[in-house]
């Protein structure tokens, strides 16, 4: 029995962490934020080469055939780095493509594994499609609101500019007749996968913001001492640590439920997105309060982590939406419907 990721998964994630520290440091993030395209040149290829993009793709398509539990620590790292790359969207799309099989899978999955394609997905309660402006292929509701795979060229995109320049959002409409209808997919499973993947990124963001805050509180002096020596600061940061610590196993369990297709999968996935969102938002609020003025500036890195937290807490279902989803599974199950 094991709740923590396996040793090899952790080792793999450690490698990715080093990679990102190298090619996607805050300086690189700033460049991407100011860049119209918004991505960090080369990183996508790097992720492919290290095997991140193919990790959960079936071996027959050139992937490693692993499940979400192996990818989880990597997703935490992409969150920790506030990485502006469509990892989650692409992973979810790959899972759906592998389910649908056939020519689509034959054509696109190897490209995804090789880092030659970006795919965006629009699932769940939302209408805004994350990563759409970057996508070569989109898996979105078609003209008749049935899920389809459609090339970037065959959709109309309306950019939805987010305060978080590290993501690219758009409203997507598929012109009549365009796109290949996708049948027989486990859409809810795909959504839960995405929700848990985003929850893992939120955990990474929360840990990163706690680390930044602890570092700053140890350096910044007021009233002749480091502000980290004041209980007012200590106790806020302790509460962030507690929230992060108790969200982590909830996210890990959800990854297991998704990987196993457990009967409690949807409840566990929603619990994970809810808990990780609350933890990350608390970490963001506290980090800003601890950094005070300097944290409120665009010059300081914190705002990029804070805004990523805002975006990821709004996409793939809000905390309230997921809490209600848990309520329905937990409280209304017994009810006559």
């Amino acid at each position: 029995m094991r709740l923590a990721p396996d040793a090899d998964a952790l080792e793999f994630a450690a490698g990715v962490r080093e990679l990102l520290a190298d090619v996607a440091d805050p300086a690189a993030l700033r460049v991407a934020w100011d860049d119209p395209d918004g991505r960090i040149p080369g990183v996508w290829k790097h992720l492919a080469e290290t095997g991140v993009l193919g990790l959960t793709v079936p071996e027959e398509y050139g992937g490693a055939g692993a499940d979400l539990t192996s990818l989880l620590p990597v997703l935490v790292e992409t969150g920790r780095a506030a990485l502006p790359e469509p990892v989650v969207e692409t992973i979810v799309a790959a899972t759906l493509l592998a389910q649908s099989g056939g020519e689509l899978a034959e054509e696109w999955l190897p490209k995804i594994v090789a880092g030659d394609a970006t795919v965006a997905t629009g699932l769940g309660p939302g209408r805004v499609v994350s990563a759409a402006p970057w996508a070569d292929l989109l898996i979105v509701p078609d003209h008749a609101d049935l899920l389809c795979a459609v090339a970037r060229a065959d959709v109309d995109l309306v950019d939805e500019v987010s305060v978080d320049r590290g993501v690219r959002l758009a409203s997507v409409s598929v012109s009549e007749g365009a796109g290949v209808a996708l049948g027989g997919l486990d859409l809810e499973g795909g959504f839960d996968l995405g929700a848990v993947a985003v929850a893992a990124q939120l955990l990474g963001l929360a840990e990163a913001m706690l680390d930044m805050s602890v570092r700053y509180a140890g350096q910044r002096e007021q009233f002749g001492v480091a502000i980290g020596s004041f209980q007012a600061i200590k106790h806020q940061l302790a509460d962030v640590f507690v929230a992060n610590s108790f969200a982590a196993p909830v996210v890990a369990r959800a990854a297991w439920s998704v990987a196993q297709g457990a009967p409690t999968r949807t409840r566990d996935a929603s619990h994970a997105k809810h808990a990780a969102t609350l933890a990350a938002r608390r970490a963001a609020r506290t980090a800003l309060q601890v950094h005070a003025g300097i944290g409120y500036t665009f010059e300081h890195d914190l705002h990029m982590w804070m805004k990523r937290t805002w975006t990821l807490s709004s996409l793939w279902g809000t905390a309230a939406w997921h809490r209600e989803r848990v309520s329905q599974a937990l409280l209304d199950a017994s009810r006559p419907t």
Partner: protein
Amino acid sequence: MDLTEPAEVAAFRSEAREWLRSHVPSTPLPSLDTEAGFAAHREWEREMFEARWAVVTWPAEYGGRDAGLLEWLAFEEEYWAAGAPVRVSQNGIFLLAPTIFEFGTKEQKDRFLAPMGRADEVWAQGWSEPGAGSDLASLRSKADRVDGGWRLSGQKTWSTRGAYADWMFGLFRSDPSSERHRGLTYLLFPLSADGVTVRPIRQLDGEPGFAEVFLDDVFVPDDNVLGGVGEGWKVAMSTTTSERGLTLRSPGRFMAAADRLVDLYTATDGSDPAAAAAARDDVVQAWMDADAYRLYVLGTALKAIDGLPIGAESSANKLFWSTLDVEIHETAFAMLGERATLEADPVAGPWLDGYEFSLAGPIYAGTNEVQRNVVAERVLGLPR
């Protein structure tokens, strides 16, 4: 007890409402923190000043209406309910002007008040320094005595409006041997003066909402000393503990935001009932808190009118409104769902701006941690 609004206040209120209805720009002005927006907000202030609505609490001779606190509260409620622009001259008219009225010479009043009211001269405050934030008394920028005045050197930061403002008021260490609250002098000087370098700082939303101001041997004549030399701390603090401390955050602003939150709830209830239902309790809590803030400030104003001391209120006040403002906007954020972070969204955009602005509340004008210390030590009398 009597909560019926006095007739003269009610009359003042409806006159203000009338004027605002016919003059408030129908489309929101561009951001205050852009050059164009700053200019547009100056224009609005001028229009208000000409109609004598810019500084209603000031004496008529300086462009006001000699309005009392109750009239002022009524005006603020009407102003924000009308969706009028934020006040570009806020630092001047709410922070500096009360100090000038209390400590300024006749010459200073004549020289500074009218241009401030017309926003011909927009003021930035120069309190914080890189090493002096919450611990304001540790500031080190100095004013050296020279013939006929002072020469300033040092650095100020977090100077709101600093990027585009014309003048600055601030505290400087005029007695080099002094420490902490002693030996400080309150000085006024133009940001165009020789030796002044303004470096705008981009805030959360990417706009230069405040600035660092570097001072290299900047001359300030004696005429621009506000209050006594070495009296700076007393002069600066007096306004925050007088009833004017109230005018920093008017209830009208939060009440208007809470009412908009109720409108957002109603709209969301139509488009996404589940999202509205999930936010229902938070919406009503936020509205009740805004209402409580309105009542609390009214009660404080009425006490002030009775001549009772109200120093203690200002810290509790700041803790409450800054928490309330975040609460209102967090609730809106949650209801807006996936659109919450979309800057250009006609509904979500303004809420996002408001959210970012609200997050500064618990930080500036004394962090909430400092305010809790003040309440605990000065109000409750707990040991330091």
